[in-house]
């Protein structure tokens, strides 16, 4: 994968901040943008040569229904408009039985669920102009009767679809904290040579459960997971996600610096 460096999630609320921060690349939430009316700030970043990666949240690739071609087309059109090297979404479902969960829901880690996910990912890949990277999600609950560890599930997904991985170390920390996922085993099981980039985000612990809020500071424990990953591979990119309760610019700059420090260790 091409080297991306250290980036931040572009959000309309912090567009000027993002423009002024020392970042090498940004990510945009695909569903928030219209191809015909891209925000001026995003176009400015493109003019500066900053890579802008479309990140989708609504393909529901792990859902029971076949992928919605219109959503895939939008993601692909955005990739072309932004000249993005690849696009991403999550290993999750967000729709079932006509209901919309409103958030990324974990999948049952069964071979049957993996078969459906693989079929959906292949269908999306056929219609996308660039490679697809898929991200591990944070879960608050565990499906019963899992047949594979999360690492095995992702490794099989990569093997069968040739997709790339977007590893969110905050989500991995959340699953370790909440579900007992073994971080070292996870990192040993996934094909790190397929790593596109890494997400880092903040969260908060509430009554013994860690919530991946993207609205709080990044915990040192999350940077420790990033360090464990860094021990195994030099990631092509690491991106900070902040979606709410935006802090002062200096605070975001400090979090980016902390990420750079872990990478330079």
């Amino acid at each position, binding site marked *: 994968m091409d080297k991306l460096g250290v980036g931040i999630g572009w959000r309309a609320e912090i567009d000027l901040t993002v423009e002024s921060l020392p970042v090498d690349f940004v990510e945009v939430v695909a569903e928030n943008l219209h191809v015909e009316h891209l925000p001026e700030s995003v176009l400015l970043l493109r003019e500066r040569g900053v890579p802008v990666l479309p990140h989708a949240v609504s393909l529901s690739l792990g859902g029971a229904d076949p992928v919605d071609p219109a959503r895939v087309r939008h993601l692909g059109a955005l990739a072309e408009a932004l000249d993005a090297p690849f696009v991403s979404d999550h290993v999750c479902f967000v729709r079932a039985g*006509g*209901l919309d969960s409103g958030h990324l829901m974990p999948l*049952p880690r069964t071979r049957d*669920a993996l078969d459906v996910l693989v079929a959906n990912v292949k269908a999306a890949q056929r219609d996308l102009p660039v490679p697809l990277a898929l991200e591990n999600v944070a879960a608050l609950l565990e499906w019963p009767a899992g047949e594979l560890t999360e690492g095995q599930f992702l490794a099989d997904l990569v093997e069968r679809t040739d997709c790339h991985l977007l590893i969110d170390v905050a989500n991995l920390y959340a699953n370790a904290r909440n579900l007992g996922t073994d971080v070292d085993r996870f990192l040993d099981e996934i094909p790190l040579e397929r790593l596109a980039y890494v997400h880092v985000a903040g969260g908060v612990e509430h009554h013994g459960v860690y919530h991946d809020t993207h609205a709080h500071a990044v915990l040192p424990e999350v940077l420790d997971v990033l360090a464990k990953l860094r021990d195994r591979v030099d990631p092509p990119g690491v991106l900070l996600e902040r979606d709410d309760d935006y802090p002062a610019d200096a605070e975001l700059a400090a979090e980016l610096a902390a990420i750079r420090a872990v990478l330079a260790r």
Partner: protein
Amino acid sequence: MTAPQRAELARAQTELLRALLADGAVPEGFDRDRVAIEARALLNKRRGVVRMVRPDLADTLGDRFRPLFDAYSRANPKHEDTRMRQYAAAFAEWLVTQGELEPPRKRRWWQRKP
């Protein structure tokens, strides 16, 4: 090729979303406490979005906003084809039918204040 797997997955995922969003029964094998925590997290997120798109409702209802929204959302979970603004508008209409909110007065041009 994946039809049987899809059918079973649809059943299981629908059952879980009903439990999380619409007070449905907790599916077998799930930890009840975790389902409750996830349900609360989803409700908090959705309430936050409705508050963002309709700050007027939160302002008018004050402390009643949260319990009223939560009751509405559990009885009327968001459908996949409903846009968030439509969902917030439907909540506002529900508030009127419940007598919790005055019906919006449509101000005509001849009623405009000078």
